[in-house]
Structure formats: structure tokens, C-alpha cells
């Protein structure tokens, strides 16, 4: 396993993983002529196959301007996505953090049962939850509202699980000495738990951000009104004849996620790895 071969393989794999970003960026910078020429086999069935240059011939920012000036719809959807994601993350932080702290650092009846329950619930995909979500949203008259997407997600048990893992790792001795100094339960949570578990909280929120920025199933099922839709449902509906717009919208959708990724990359790694640690 020595020598250049593994490096080459790993490098090729890394390129494959990141190529879509480059592809989208290239597409946004091509002028209409070049896009039309490149995509004509798909758009106009003109025969032959799409050929794609690694870099644009005459780079232009024209499509960015077009999107900014001519596509008000895009910004409605963008704002919807921001609103949904921000509300869900805030809710998960407010509700999930104390729950994780309670499960991780206290002994009370049913604690073990609750932990198992939370893990089981975390595993259930949307196809299992679809009807139950519908029933509850219908009863609360939250169908076709953003609140109907936000509320069930706020009580998702996945972030609780991640934060739980980090809170568990805080040494008991620290809490013990705080208790001896007369710190109350709340003081310990705010002044010791939150700062020492900050890594776990950020990890959980980064994972949640990537998940909910990408939300598709729930809005697809529960939002009939298209003006409430997030970006993810809007993008695939841009026709190939407006390829420039499609490329730029894709990049705008991508940007916040990639930005979060670059800022929170270490937390993301810790958050993923947290699940692998055996207790």
C-alpha cells in the first residue's frame, strides 16, 4: 500500500466528489450561445451528445444579473428556505439542548427507556411518519403553512442524540466541584453544560442545517400553495431552455450550504463521528 497509487486513487475520488460544484460554477459563467451550443442535444434533440468544457470559453456574469433582476420568484423561494431552516434550527436548539442535557446528566425513572425511545424515533424515515404528521397537522389546522413543516422538525430526536453524546463526555468531576461550590441545577447547565458541550451543539446544528436546507419530502406533501415552497422544489422546474437561470439558481442554493460546510467542517466531522463512539 505504499507509493503513489493510493494517493492517486484517493485524489481521483476527491475530484469526483467535488466536481459537481465546479460543473455548476462553469455553467453559470457561460454565455447563452455557448450554453445553447453545449446543451442542444438535450434541449432540442439535435443529435449527438452534450459535450462539456472544463472551463467556459467567454466567461460572463450575465446570468447572475438576470437572476437578480428578472426572477422575483426565486427570492420568494429562497426566503422561504431561509425562514424554514432558521426556525427549525432555533427550535431544535431551544428544545433539544435541555433535553439532551437532562438525558445525559441526570438519573430519573424512565431515563433509559426514554433514551431508547429517542433513538428509535430518530431512525424512522419520512415514509413512516408521513401519515401521522398529516393527521396531527390536519387536526391543528397547520396544513399548507410553514408552521406545519417547522413544528414536527423541531421535535426531531436526532439533534438530541448528537448533543447527548457530547454532554455525556463532560467529566462528572467538573459538575461535582461546581455543585460543591453551591451552583444550582440551572447554573450548572448554563455555565458548564452549554460552554463545554458547545462543540456538540454546533455539530448537531450543522448536520440539521444541511438536512433542512435540503428539505423535500415534507413541503412536497404538506404545502399545496407554491408561494410557500422552498428552493428545493422550485429548482427542478426550471426548464432546460433557461439553462443559465437554472445554473445560477443552483449555485445560489448551493452557496449557503457550502459556506456552512466550510465554516463548520470540523464540527460536522465531530458530529458524524459522535455516533460511532461506543458507550
Amino acid at each position, binding site marked *: 500500500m505504499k507509493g503513489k497509487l493510493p494517493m492517486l486513487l484517493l485524489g481521483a475520488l476527491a475530484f469526483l466528489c467535488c466536481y459537481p460544484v465546479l460543473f455548476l460554477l462553469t455553467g453559470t459563467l457561460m454565455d447563452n450561445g455557448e450554453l445553447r451550443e453545449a446543451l442542444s442535444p438535450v434541449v432540442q434533440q439535435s443529435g449527438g451528445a452534450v459535450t462539456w468544457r472544463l472551463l467556459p470559453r467567454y466567461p460572463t456574469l450575465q446570468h447572475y444579473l438576470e437572476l437578480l433582476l428578472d426572477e422575483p420568484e426565486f427570492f420568494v423561494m429562497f426566503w422561504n428556505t431561509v425562514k424554514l431552516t432558521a426556525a427549525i434550527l432555533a427550535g431544535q436548539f431551544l428544545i433539544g439542548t435541555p433535553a439532551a442535557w437532562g438525558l445525559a446528566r441526570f438519573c430519573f425513572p424512565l431515563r433509559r427507556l426514554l433514551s431508547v425511545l429517542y433513538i428509535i424515533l430518530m431512525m424512522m424515515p419520512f415514509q413512516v411518519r408521513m401519515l401521522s404528521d398529516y393527521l396531527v397537522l390536519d387536526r391543528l389546522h397547520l396544513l399548507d403553512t410553514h408552521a406545519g413543516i417547522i413544528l414536527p422538525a423541531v421535535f426531531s430526536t436526532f439533534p438530541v442524540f448528537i448533543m447527548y453524546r457530547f454532554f455525556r463526555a463532560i467529566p462528572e468531576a467538573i459538575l461535582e466541584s461546581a455543585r460543591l461550590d453551591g451552583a444550582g441545577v440551572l447554573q450548572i447547565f448554563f455555565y458548564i453544560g452549554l460552554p463545554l458541550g458547545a462543540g456538540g451543539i454546533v455539530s448537531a446544528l450543522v448536520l440539521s442545517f444541511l438536512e433542512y436546507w435540503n428539505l423535500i419530502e415534507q413541503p412536497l406533501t404538506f404545502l399545496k400553495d407554491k408561494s410557500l415552497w422552498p428552493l428545493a422544489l422550485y429548482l427542478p422546474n426550471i426548464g432546460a431552455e433557461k439553462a443559465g437561470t437554472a445554473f445560477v439558481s443552483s449555485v445560489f442554493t448551493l452557496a449557503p450550504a457550502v459556506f456552512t460546510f466550510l465554516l463548520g467542517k470540523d464540527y460536522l466531522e465531530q458530529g458524524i463521528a459522535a455516533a*460511532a463512539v461506543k458507550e
Partner: protein
Amino acid sequence: MRKGFFFVLPSLTGVILFLLLPFADVVRRSFFDVLGNAFVGLRNYQTVFQNGAFLQAASNTLRFTAVCIPLLVTVSLAAAVLLKEQKGMGSIFKSMYLVPMAIPVASVVLLWKLLFDRSGILNGLFSLEIDWMNSEYAFWVLVFSYLWKNLGYDVILWLAGLAGIAPEIYEAARVDGAGQWRCFFSITLPNLLPSLYTITVLSFLNSFKAFREAYLVAGDYPHQSMYLMQHLFNNWFRELSLDKLAAGAVINAAAILLLVMLLRRAWEKE
């Protein structure tokens, strides 16, 4: 120490209100007719198990899981083991593998469409004439996109497992004359078995998200080889077949629970 319960209370209230109670209602409904009034026993389950679309979706989902998870687990293990040996570039590569996780499905749909079209980039590159999205190959496109998306996630999990193996064991083995392969099979693999359970379960959970790609690229009615459970449930939902949907949800929940418990059992035997 009962104060701990109050920390959990807000979350638990929400979980009961939004998850447990409605799911209990779903279980009840699975034994009632579509209006939820008349008790019908197991008839909904019988209908679902005799439903052609359900069997198709179930077998696709099982096939998808059976193909993807072993593939992903092995490829990511190989990448993690190689990555661990690299200095410098290693950590950059590791981050690059995670990039697909950050790319929203909606953003790559455009690439997927251009790549896998009958006159798309892939066919152009290799002079092929394959209609990827409208043939059996659609299934493999989905497999590829799952691997692409989840590789980095699993690599991180494996690396966490690898980091838990004490370097002294390797040193001792090397002193005793064990080669690289011997070390891998006699030390690395046995020590990674505990990670295998977690990684399999997490990969399994992530496999449900493959619906997003399938839906955004191919819509409500994709080629039958990539027709998944979620497609079927969406159709039942649109038809308001709540009775079938209830039975289907219970069957799915039971299957997932059973699989996770079986894996756990197998894992604890080690």
C-alpha cells in the same frame, strides 16, 4: 435528581404530541376502514401485501439496500484505511469527500439530468447509446448517487473507528514480522467490528434519503426499477387511501425496527 426530567419535558411533550400519539392513531387506523369508523381486522394489511405496486416498491427498496450498503461500507473502509496512511493531503481529501453531503440535491439535479440523458454527457464521453433514466440502469444511477453522497460520511465514521485502535498493537505485530495485509486482516478488521454495526445502521438510515434524488430527477413516476416506497406512499396520499397508508407505515416501521434489532443482536454476539 428528578430535576433532570424537567429538562426533558418540553421535548418529550412535543415528541408525544407530534410523534407518539399520531403514530398510535396510525396503528389504530391500520385496523379500520378508510374513514376510520369500521373495524376491519387485518384486511388493510392483506390488501397492502397483495398490492403489486407495494411489492415492487418493497423489493426495489430491499434490493437497493442490499446493493448499496455493502458497497458503501467496503469502499469507504478502503478509502479510510488508505487515507489514514496519508500525511498532509489526507485531511484535505477527507474534507473533499464530505462536500457531496453539503450539496443540496436540488442543485445537482441539473448535472444528473445532463449527465444521464440519452444524449447526455456520459453517453457522449464513452460513445454509448444508453437511456440511463428510462431503463434498468436507472437503479444503478440511484446507487451511484447514494454512494457519491454518503462516501464522506462513512469515511469519517471508519476513521473514528480506526483512531480507536492503539498504535502499539501494530508496532508489536510488525516486530513479530507481520506484513501490511496481515496487519489489516488480523488487527484492523477485528477491531473495527464494533464500528460496523453503527456504520451499517447509519448507512441504512441515509439510504431512505435516496428518494430525494429519484424524485427530483425523475418525478412522481420514475422507471419502475427506481420506484421506491416513498413514491408509492405519495401516490396513496394523493388518492387519500389512508387505510393502505396506515398499514404501510406500520409495516415499514416494524421492518426497520426488526432490521436494526437483528443487526444489534448480531453485533453483540461478537
